[in-house]
């Protein structure tokens, strides 16, 4: 059995007087959907941001494919985010001035892919998440559920190894939330991308392969107990 793709050990992070993380362990295997559960304010988003290289922990280690994420330069980390990671947040992650098609093509364009090629691939992804007809619209002119599908397409268009999804259905009703979860997990599984899925909802977590629970900034991962 191969080792985990991404491992965080004994992560600590303090914001002012708030200890958001005080000893969190987590591992992510290639292609698995890992739910990160726990009450509001327990540190789930902070943990996700650390694993994704968005926030630097005060102490603890993060290894991605054997590379030390904490020791990397900012430039190396942002390059890694672009090439290996995809992101879906609760809301507000689409660029309002761009069309939905341009939004999905954006990660590829930032990686230097030519417009025609990037947009052709983006169009395929929009169709894959069943919103092919929305390419020319701007995010402000589509519904919440449609916007999250576009976000799923954008997260997966660059063939990431890991998709970080923070409450991706948090702003949606049950039916739209369900559809987005199905599209996200199905697309990620068939692309063999891992998903780190932050959610406090059990029905959403039920789309995962396994779960860890964050409580008061601490988390243990049975896969790491050796």
């Amino acid at each position, binding site marked *: 059995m191969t080792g985990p793709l991404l491992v965080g050990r004994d992560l600590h992070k303090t914001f002012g007087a708030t200890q958001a993380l005080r000893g969190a362990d987590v591992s992510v295997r290639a292609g698995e959907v890992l739910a990160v559960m726990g*009450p509001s304010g327990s540190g789930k988003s902070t943990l996700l941001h650390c694993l994704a290289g968005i926030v630097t922990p005060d102490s603890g280690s993060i290894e991605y494919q054997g590379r030390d994420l904490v020791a990397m330069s900012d430039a190396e980390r942002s390059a890694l985010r672009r090439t290996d990671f995809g992101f879906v947040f609760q809301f507000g992650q689409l660029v309002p001035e761009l069309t939905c098609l341009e939004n999905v093509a954006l990660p590829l364009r930032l990686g230097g892919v030519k417009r025609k090629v990037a947009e052709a691939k983006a169009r395929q992804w929009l169709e894959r998440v069943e919103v092919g007809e929305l390419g020319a619209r701007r995010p402000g002119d589509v519904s919440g559920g449609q916007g999250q599908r576009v976000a799923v397409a954008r997260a997966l268009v660059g063939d990431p190894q890991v998709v970080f999804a923070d409450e991706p259905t948090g702003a949606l009703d049950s039916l739209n939330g369900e559809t987005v979860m*199905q599209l996200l997990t*199905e697309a990620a599984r068939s692309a063999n991308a891992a998903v780190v899925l932050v959610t*406090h*909802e*059990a*029905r959403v*977590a*039920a*789309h*995962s*392969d396994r*779960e860890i*629970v964050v*409580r008061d900034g601490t988390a243990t991962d049975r896969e790491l107990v050796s």
Partner: protein
Amino acid sequence: MSVSRTLLALLEPGPRHGYDLKRAYDEQFAQGRQLAYGQVYSTLSRLLRNGLVEEAGVEHGAGPDRKRYTITDAGVTDVETWLGTAENPEPYLQNTLYTKVVLALLSGRSATEVLDTQRSAHLKVMRELTRRKTGGDLADQLICDHALFHLEADLRWLELTAARLDALAEVVRP
């Protein structure tokens, strides 16, 4: 769920043989647990005794199981009343879990562990239901969703209890 009421309601659109009735039930509601013939016939004879169904002729030359049954006016009223009455919301699981949590606190065991164990058992079942739903038709989806929402409700109670364990410990410990 009342099998007897369900069979009775399945007779409302028109008379059926016992065998047809079983097949109709299995198609709509069995979810992998088909009715036994014995149960269908014993239910029909009870419904017959209670005047909720009556015999509607026997097919020529057929055995006793070729009898057709039809719903009576009293049967229709019974179905209507049943459909119009809410089910008892049954907090059976909470009772058992609450008992376990209190017993864990009283005996100095980890109540968090009781709750964690239950969470992962719940999530395991919820994952199976989610998988079944993803591959299923609309009927599967709706039936699985019902179970999923119920299990989710248990889990929400569990999380709330986990957040209140310290307070609960103070109340239950002598």
